[in-house]
């Protein structure tokens, strides 16, 4: 079981309010991702749940029990840190066994659990090595192993993949998702990378300056962003946001259109522009198109093989049904 409820949780550091009163419910077995730009308070929020920071006011409930002032170790949560925080002088086996040893578990049970965690994570050949002798991905797995053996109510991940190289990151992303499917335990995952959020989450919590901007499934956030910030943050490349006459024509202060919802054409269309930088990814091509009377280029997705080059004239036609409209305050007009 791992249902976590935050009730008007507030965090201040001296005079600075990092997290204004905030409500959030995390259901049992859910994979929840906190995402937002750096300094948005997502790590602080995770540390509040873990108990590594004290809540200034409000209540944290885990499985219905008030856990606001419960010591971190007693909350039944396990955390995987950004730096992995492995104990360098202990072997992998001792690292994984550490929480069990602290819980004064019997040695036979400890061995059984460590061995089973090691085989799940493909760490069996490395059990007697020190963390210093392992690669980044292996260290990551040891950190996860140390969390698994405790059989916690929920896992907390603090940007666990940010120290890995790009290829390894994709692999570990799959492994963590796989692990979640198998254990069916609540996982709370913090990242600044919206791709990680989109690919792994059941529920994404978008944060900005300590405030929850939107909570929802990845596709909900993609299709109906509640405001301009979420619209710009979710989706890669970013949504194009246009103000001025184009927006007024559609009865909004700002309109947004994703690169994949614009059709480019060399001959005809709604907007006329000039091709700037183009990024060829093989499967896709992203054109940065400069429209007349607009400083910022518009990003457009085209197929893999489009015969258009820097400086060419291009016509763009947005898909009107996919257009997002926002009012002056940045909120969605539905």
């Amino acid at each position, binding site marked *: 079981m791992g249902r976590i409820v935050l009730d008007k949780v507030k965090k201040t550091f001296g005079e600075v309010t990092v997290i204004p009163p905030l409500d959030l419910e995390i259901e049992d077995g859910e994979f929840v991702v906190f995402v937002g730009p750096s300094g948005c308070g997502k790590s602080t929020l995770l540390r509040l749940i*873990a*108990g*590594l920071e004290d809540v200034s006011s409000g209540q944290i409930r885990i499985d219905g029990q008030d856990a606001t002032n419960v010591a*971190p*170790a007693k909350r039944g*949560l*396990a*955390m995987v*840190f*950004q*730096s992995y*925080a*492995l*104990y*360098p*002088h202990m072997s992998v086996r001792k690292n994984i066994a*550490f*929480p069990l040893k*602290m*819980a004064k578990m019997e040695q036979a049970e400890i061995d059984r659990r460590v061995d089973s965690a090691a085989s799940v994570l493909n760490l069996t050949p490395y059990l007697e090595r*020190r963390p210093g002798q392992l690669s980044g991905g292996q260290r990551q797995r040891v950190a996860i192993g*140390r969390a698994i053996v*405790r059989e916690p109510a929920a896992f907390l991940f603090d940007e666990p993949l940010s120290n890995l190289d790009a290829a390894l990151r994709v692999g570990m992303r799959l492994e963590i998702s796989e692990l979640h499917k198998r254990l069916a335990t609540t996982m709370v995952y913090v990242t600044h990378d919206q791709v990680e959020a989109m690919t792994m989450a059941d529920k994404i919590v978008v944060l900005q300056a300590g405030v929850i901007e939107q909570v929802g499934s990845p596709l909900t956030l993609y299709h109906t962003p509640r405001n301009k910030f979420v619209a710009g943050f979710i989706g890669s490349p970013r949504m194009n946001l246009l103000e001025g006459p184009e927006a007024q024509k559609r009865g909004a202060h700002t309109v947004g259109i994703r690169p994949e919802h614009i059709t480019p054409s060399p001959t005809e269309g709604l907007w006329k522009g000039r091709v700037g930088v183009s990024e060829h990814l093989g499967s896709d091509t992203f054109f940065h198109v400069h429209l007349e009377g607009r400083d910022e280029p518009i990003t457009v997705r085209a197929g893999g093989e489009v015969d258009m080059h820097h400086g060419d004239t291009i016509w763009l036609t947005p898909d009107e049904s996919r257009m997002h409209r926002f009012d002056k305050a940045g909120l969605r007009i539905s």
Partner: protein
Amino acid sequence: MATQHSRSAARLMMAPAVILLLGWMLVPLVMTLWFSFREYLPLRGGDMGFVGLENYIRFVTSSAFWPSVQTTLVLVGGVLLITTIFGILLALLLDQPMWGQGIVRILVIAPFFVMPTVTALVWKNMFMDPVNGLFAHIWKFFGAQPVEWLSQWSLFSIIIIVAWQWLPFATLILLTAIQSLDSEQLEAAEMDGAPPLKRFAYIILPHLSRALTVVVLIQTIFLLSIFAEIFVTTQGSFGTRTLTYLIYQRVLESQNVGLGSAGGIYAVILANIVAIFLMRIVGKNLDA
């Protein structure tokens, strides 16, 4: 450093330092070795020729030899024990965020900059004097008979003085080591259910082991040659005659250069045994 030319230029430029070092170390060592085989009594006949190993045999068979070795070991061991234990505690304390941290740290380091002679004099006259010392006043305040520190507790007193002097060094090294500990490791241990004492035993102490060996190694080498503190306080009486002090007495008080030199060579051997022993521990620790 690739070409023949740059290599010879490098040798030329290193030469002054190498020559100076060699002269500084080798000349005294060779002279000590030379005198240790001779009967040399400056005020009673001067240099009277080779006597073989007689000086060496006389030095170790003298009744003062083994007690002085024991005193040396107790002194070094005692100071190491006090400085490492209190060094760890002080370092843990100074690592806590507090008001006036910078000033407090400088104050803690201050004793290290006081000359050994001055340290010993300050302790002897201000603290340990049985009539006017601070300790005597405290004892009298509680109605107790003041302790004559330097005669009743002579070796212990010297250990205290030397430990006071070396505590800042240990604290400083251990403090920097504690500061280099990744705080996420402590948080991870906290989440893993380790209470503060176990966090200290399982995380902090192993992290400090390297710094501790460095502290022990460096201090041992310097503590083996403690002299000023003894000279200023007890003059080697009341069981405070270390090996170093015995050698000094043989050469200057007995005016027997040959005998003292033989003792010097013993001291060199002893220091090297300790150094090799410690180097191995450090080497093992640095590998891990």
